[in-house]
């Protein structure tokens, strides 16, 4: 019988396996199960329609943000095209479901694969470029994909948009917010597990090596270009997966939402959450989606208070302002993001009252 693990009062690790174990203590595992139980057993049944909607949006954003964090936080390749990849996923899911009649459970991962291919195409410049040149290349990718989505009308129906059939899974129709909650969060939990484990494999370690010093990584025998492409593919797969989920959830899609500001929003999630941290991506998704909803709420409130509509319109500008301010303040004061805040809070509790 194994003994229960507690926090040791020092670093007593003797094996590499201990270093890469997911849970340092058995309490961590226990908390995870409690958390999952609350997430699936309690939360969807006590929250109202609107709150469920917000939670679903957070779940979808978290999947995409996890993908972007693999690319930016772990591989160090800054991409400004994630919003466009999300759009590619949404359209791929919609087209597969309407044209080819694929069922929901198949079309979402298939959309992810399609997006992964597109992501690899737009990752090709990373073979020659790095740093800000690559960032600019992905910016170009964003505009090119946006253009294709709008103008390839025979496939995407241009600005008219596509209406999706209702999602069915195991013979059940998934239409209510609660059913979608279950699906989205099951996917998120699965994907988080995959991501955590991916980062413990040789692939994850190669990504981190490339981020920290690409030339040294090459010297150690990591073929940089294939790994960078792989990172682009994985990250776009996540974006496409999330995009397809989003398309089924919102039933009809148009090209409008997948613009540069969506890409910026995803980068903001990754930065505010914490670069190179898996819980960070989820924190960031919660923060940014929550911020969006709070700001929308405030805007609506001002609109309803009988203030003139022009003032109400200007409030929409304040949303942009608050969003920018959040990014800037986080970068200036807590560049490691919410994950670091969370770590500090936790270790304060753990070490209290002798936190030094």
């Amino acid at each position: 019988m194994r003994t229960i693990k507690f926090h040791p009062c020092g670093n007593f690790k003797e094996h590499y396996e201990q270093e890469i174990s997911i849970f340092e203590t058995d309490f961590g595992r226990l908390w995870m199960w409690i958390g999952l139980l609350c997430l699936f057993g309690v939360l969807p049944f006590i929250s109202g329609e609107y709150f469920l909607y917000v939670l679903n949006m957070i779940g979808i954003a978290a999947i995409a943000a996890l993908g972007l964090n693999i690319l930016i936080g772990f591989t160090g390749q800054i991409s400004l095209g994630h919003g466009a990849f999300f759009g590619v996923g949404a359209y791929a899911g919609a087209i597969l479901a309407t044209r080819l009649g694929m069922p929901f459970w198949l079309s979402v991962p298939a959309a992810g694969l399609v997006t992964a291919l597109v992501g690899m195409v737009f990752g090709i410049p990373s073979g020659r470029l790095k740093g800000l040149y690559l960032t600019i290349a992905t910016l170009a990718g964003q505009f090119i994909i946006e253009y294709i989505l709008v103008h390839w009308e025979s496939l995407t129906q241009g600005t008219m948009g596509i209406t999706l059939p209702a999602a069915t899974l195991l013979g059940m129709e998934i239409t209510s917010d609660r059913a979608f909650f279950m699906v989205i969060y099951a996917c998120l939990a699965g994907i988080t597990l995959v991501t955590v484990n991916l980062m413990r494999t040789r692939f994850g370690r190669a990504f981190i090596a490339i981020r920290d010093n690409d030339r040294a990584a090459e010297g150690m025998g990591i073929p940089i270009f294939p790994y960078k492409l792989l990172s682009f593919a994985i990250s776009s797969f996540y974006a496409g997966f999330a995009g397809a989920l989003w398309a089924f959830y919102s039933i009809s899609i148009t090209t409008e939402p997948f613009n540069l500001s969506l890409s910026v929003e995803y980068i903001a999630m990754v930065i505010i959450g914490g670069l190179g941290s898996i819980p960070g991506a989820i924190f960031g998704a919660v923060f940014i989606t929550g911020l969006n909803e709070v700001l929308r709420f405030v805007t609506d409130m001002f609109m309803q208070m009988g203030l003139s509509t022009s003032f109400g319109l200007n409030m929409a500008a304040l949303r942009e302002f608050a969003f920018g301010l959040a990014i800037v303040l986080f970068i200036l004061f807590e560049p490691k993001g919410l994950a670091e805040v969370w770590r500090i809070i936790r270790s304060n509790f753990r070490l209290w009252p002798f936190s030094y």
Partner: protein
Amino acid sequence: MDFFLQLLVNGLSVGLLYGLSAMGFVMVFKSSSVLNFAHGELLAIGAFLFLVLSTWARLPIPAAFLMTLAGCFVLGFLVERIFLRPLIGEQLIFVIMLTVGLAAIFKGLLLFVFGGNLHTYPVFLPEGLALHLGAIYVPPVYVASSLTGIIFLVLFGLFFKFSPQGIFMRSVADNQRAALSLGVHVKKVFALSWAIAALVAGMSGIVLGIINGISVHEISAIGLKVFPVVILGGLDSIGGAIIGGIIIGLLEAFTGGYISPSLRDVVPYIVLVFILLIKPYGLFGLVEIERV
């Protein structure tokens, strides 16, 4: 043939504007290697400041112009001091995202104060500036903007070549550490280059405003067009920015005229990808060879 010539003139004049807009961007990049995503908003701030001073405060045009430039200079200085300085030596992504955040802040503020509508300046350029080249009419604004563009280009060329501050800026751009050890006040150079860049951006913003009218969305969109322009010209070459701007402008005009108007806006980015793959340092940029 007339169509061709008209497209040529349109492309040249739009391209000149792109070039002018890109000058400030290049200046920031040259001295501090910051990719400024807020450049479009700096242009817009210049344009709106001039609007406020010239039409709302009813100052005479030259005074308003000078005060706008002074205001932009101070703004650029403050932006560097408050936001960019804490990030010296930080990772690239933080610097990029900071300017993205700044762009959102500025854009939000401008939209809040001025709304998203189109504003226009009163007409103040004399009609005598207009040029008639055969069948083609060049409006006075384009003549004035070309003149200001050339004047600024020459002034900055001289400034970088001969003035001590300009030489400091070039030395910092070339090698920060070496400049620091030779006694160059690197932080002062950063502040100054942001201030000058904001000044140039303000000037370009005014010219843009005179030609297209001033709307926050339009001008900040031009801030993104700057990227293909500077990549084509070379990220750290001011003359390259102008030439890159003209090439991109011509490309846009001819694509819009001969192929498809909807392709017009995306063609600079397609070109951008190819340039990045073939000649990433642009036509006139400094080549730092580092293969990955």
